[in-house]
């Protein structure tokens, strides 16, 4: 039997004016188990708290019921009070007789009666309360960043600067991501490589950062503070330690007809390659799909010319297991495929290109060395048409229902740069809306129109018809002029919608992190926790969470880093003790609870049990990780046998409250 103390607060006149607090205290004093009852003007005041502390000590209370304001107001306060008097804080229950009683009822008799019932319910609950101690789990002071684009690099640098080791896993042979492929960045027009490559070098040289390039996450186990991750280091066929990045092998390689993905297939590379000059790590990689040696066993030229002896055709994928306290997802985006939109003739003419291809065509390290030339005949285009919203804001199956956010700005940039470099070109931009929220963004777009004379046409292109003379007849509507425009263009640039990288969905499954229907990672709260996944210990950086431009990506990357640092500085994580737990003797191992758990907190183990007949049996039973469980209770109802219960809100506690209320 508990020894319960009841404390009725007047809250000045807030409660006392409508509830007869004396009568409440008196009535509740005769409830079974209640050994002390008192009322006081302000129970939350220091004097009030002292009253509670004294009573706990003097009357050897094992449970406390406070009839006062909402537990959302002062539950934490009174728990601390109890703890200060040596009582487990979870032995305190609050009866809400202010917000849910005195403030809504006018009749004193009615309100008093209700207050007594609420007090009884709290007493009934306390009878079944058990002392709870928040679980503690150690924190591995190391972070993993998945994806080595600008988002991943920035997050890694910030975490590393705070003094924690960070690993970056990047599936490509080099870090750098999409930004490495860009020419200039809006709205400042500074060169992407000039601001990105120093960061890449910083990441490579930072003592706290280790880069797993050409690697992928294979498996993730564990939970916040204690992740165990298996990383697959894909075979490069080149020893990254020995390789000096001299590039001789790439020159001598006889297989030179491999579509160069870095230039989006607009030129070729060799079968052994370094993606681009500033690659980090600057190490060659053999493409086994094209390498003559790998395919036929003959050749081996690269091995012959490599003075460092770095080539190893027998290299195998390698699996490494590392421990992390936090994981940051920074898997980025890709432009969508355009096969569903061939009214723009992307598949029918080489002179219809995507905006990312345009970046490469204007980049000094691109296939045309930075001179804007038509892919079909290498001639300088004189009329260029940009088409916005290709696949964005599409309802139905064809495209993406969302706005891709970055296209308006990069198209303005492309248009402006084209006009600046080639004043003899006519540049048209077909748009539905020009969306430029962002610092100096609208000014930038206006400059394209006002200073650079870019023709912005409100309307959409309906068809691009390649002509026999090599031009492209662009037919679109000009809604302002109420006419159908037909332009003979030399080059058409499509602002393709962007979508999350294809690796994101399988990764989310491994991380038990949630995603929306577009495969963007979901944040724990769109406003209050925008860089965290609902799964504890998983953080989001960059476009994997939604379309973002570079400034926004870097901000979010640093925000995610701050959250990671906040986690890693802790030596131990203290959990919420009101978590689910499973009675192993009753567990069926049926997985119902696991399926409804939003946090992946439930796992199953095969355990040996002594059976009543002295035999042993192996049974599959659920096990809740208290560090991951957030205590929603979904599992408790999914469990048919009642093996799963929730601390602080147990089946018997809630039923006792029901009984007390209905008595």
């Amino acid at each position, binding site marked *: 039997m508990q020894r319960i103390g009841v404390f009725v607060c007047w809250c000045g006149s807030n409660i006392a004016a409508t509830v007869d607090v004396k009568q409440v205290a008196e009535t509740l004093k005769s409830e079974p188990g209640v050994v002390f009852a008192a009322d006081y003007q302000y129970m939350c005041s220091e004097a009030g708290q002292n009253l509670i502390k004294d009573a706990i000590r003097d009357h050897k209370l094992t449970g406390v019921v406070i009839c006062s304001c*909402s*537990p*959302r107001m002062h539950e934490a306060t009174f728990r601390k009070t109890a703890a200060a008097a040596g009582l487990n804080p979870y032995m305190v229950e609050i009866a*809400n007789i*202010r*917000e*849910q*009683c005195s*403030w*809504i*009822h*006018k*009749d004193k*008799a*009615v*309100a008093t*009666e*209700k207050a007594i*019932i*609420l007090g009884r*319910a709290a007493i009934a609950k306390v009878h079944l309360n058990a002392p709870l101690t928040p679980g503690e789990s150690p924190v591995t002071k190391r972070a993993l960043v998945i994806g080595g684009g600008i988002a991943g690099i920035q997050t890694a640098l910030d975490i590393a600067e705070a003094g924690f080791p960070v690993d970056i896993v990047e599936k490509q042979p080099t870090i750098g991501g999409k930004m490495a492929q860009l020419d200039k960045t809006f709205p400042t027009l500074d060169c992407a490589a000039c601001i990105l490559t120093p960061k890449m070098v910083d990441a490579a040289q930072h003592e706290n950062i280790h880069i797993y390039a050409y690697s992928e996450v294979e498996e993730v186990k564990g939970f916040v503070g204690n992740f165990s991750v298996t990383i697959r280091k894909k075979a490069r066929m080149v020893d990254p330690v020995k390789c000096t990045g001299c590039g001789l092998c790439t020159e001598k390689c006889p297989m030179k007809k491999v579509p160069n993905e870095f230039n989006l297939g607009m030129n070729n590379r060799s079968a052994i390659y370094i993606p681009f000059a500033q690659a980090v790590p600057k190490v060659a990689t053999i493409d086994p799909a094209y390498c003559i040696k790998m395919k036929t066993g003959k050749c081996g030229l690269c091995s012959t010319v490599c003075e460092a002896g770095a080539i190893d055709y027998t290299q195998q994928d390698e699996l490494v297991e590392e421990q992390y306290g936090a994981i940051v997802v920074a898997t980025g985006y890709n432009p969508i495929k355009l096969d569903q939109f061939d009214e723009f003739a992307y598949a029918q003419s080489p002179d219809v290109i995507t905006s990312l291809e345009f970046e490469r065509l204007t980049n000094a390290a691109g296939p045309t060395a930075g001179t804007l030339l038509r892919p079909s005949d290498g001639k300088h285009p004189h009329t260029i048409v940009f088409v916005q919203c290709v696949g964005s804001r599409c309802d139905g199956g064809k495209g993406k229902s969302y706005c891709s956010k970055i296209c308006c700005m990069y198209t303005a940039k492309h248009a402006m740069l084209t006009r600046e470099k080639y004043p003899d070109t006519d540049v048209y931009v077909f748009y539905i809306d020009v969306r430029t929220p962002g610092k100096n963004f609208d000014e930038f777009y206006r400059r394209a129109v006002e200073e650079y004379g870019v023709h912005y046409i409100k309307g959409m292109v309906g068809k691009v018809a390649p002509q026999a003379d090599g031009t492209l007849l662009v037919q679109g509507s000009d809604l302002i002029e109420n006419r159908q425009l037909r332009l003979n263009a030399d080059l058409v640039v499509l602002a393709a919608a962007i979508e999350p990288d294809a690796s994101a969905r399988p990764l989310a499954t491994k991380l038990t992190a*949630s995603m929306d229907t577009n495969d963007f990672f*979901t944040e724990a709260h769109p406003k209050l926790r925008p860089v965290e996944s*609902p799964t504890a210990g998983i953080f989001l950086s960059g476009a994997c969470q939604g379309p973002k431009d570079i400034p926004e990506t870097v901000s979010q990357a640093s925000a995610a880093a701050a959250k990671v640092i906040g986690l890693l500085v802790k030596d131990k994580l203290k959990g919420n003790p*009101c978590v689910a737990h499973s009675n192993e003797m009753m567990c069926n191992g049926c997985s119902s609870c696991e399926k*409804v758990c*939003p946090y992946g907190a439930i796992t199953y183990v095969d355990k040996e049990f002594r059976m009543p007949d002295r035999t042993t049996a192996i049974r599959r039973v659920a096990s809740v990780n208290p560090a991951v469980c*957030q*205590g*929603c*209770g*979904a599992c*408790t*109802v*999914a469990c048919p046998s009642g093996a799963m219960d*929730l601390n602080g*809100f147990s*089946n018997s506690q*809630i*039923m006792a*409250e*029901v*009984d007390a*209320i*209905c*008595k």
Partner: protein
Amino acid sequence: MQVNEKEFKPLIVAFCCNWCSYAGADLSGTNRLNYPANVKIIRVPCSCRVNPMFVLRAFQRGADGVILCGCHPGDCHYTTGNYYTRRRMTLLFSMLDYLGIERDRTRVEWVSAAEGAKFAATMNDFVATVTRLGENKRLEDLRCKKQ
């Protein structure tokens, strides 16, 4: 209890999730929005914590109506809890209805932490509905009846 014998006052048990509806109930108190005192609230972490057993238990012990309140779908503090609530309670209520138990004795309502007015209005409406139905006879346990 001193209840006027002539005037039937139904006993209503309201299960409210801690994050939205309980806060909504607090808000209706803060704004002094009245609803009958025969509504008694039980705080649960999430509407998905409510086991059908609790609902039946309440009726057994003498409740005349049971209402569950949770965050609006999409706003669950635990992201998905109320979606499970929605399915479970739909099926439970349908079963009660199938057994001929008055369907208006049970209800699920989504009330956010900002919807104090909605909370009070919902409770007023529910109490009125259950009052019209009268005493719970079809799911009562005579042993639990007050003498």
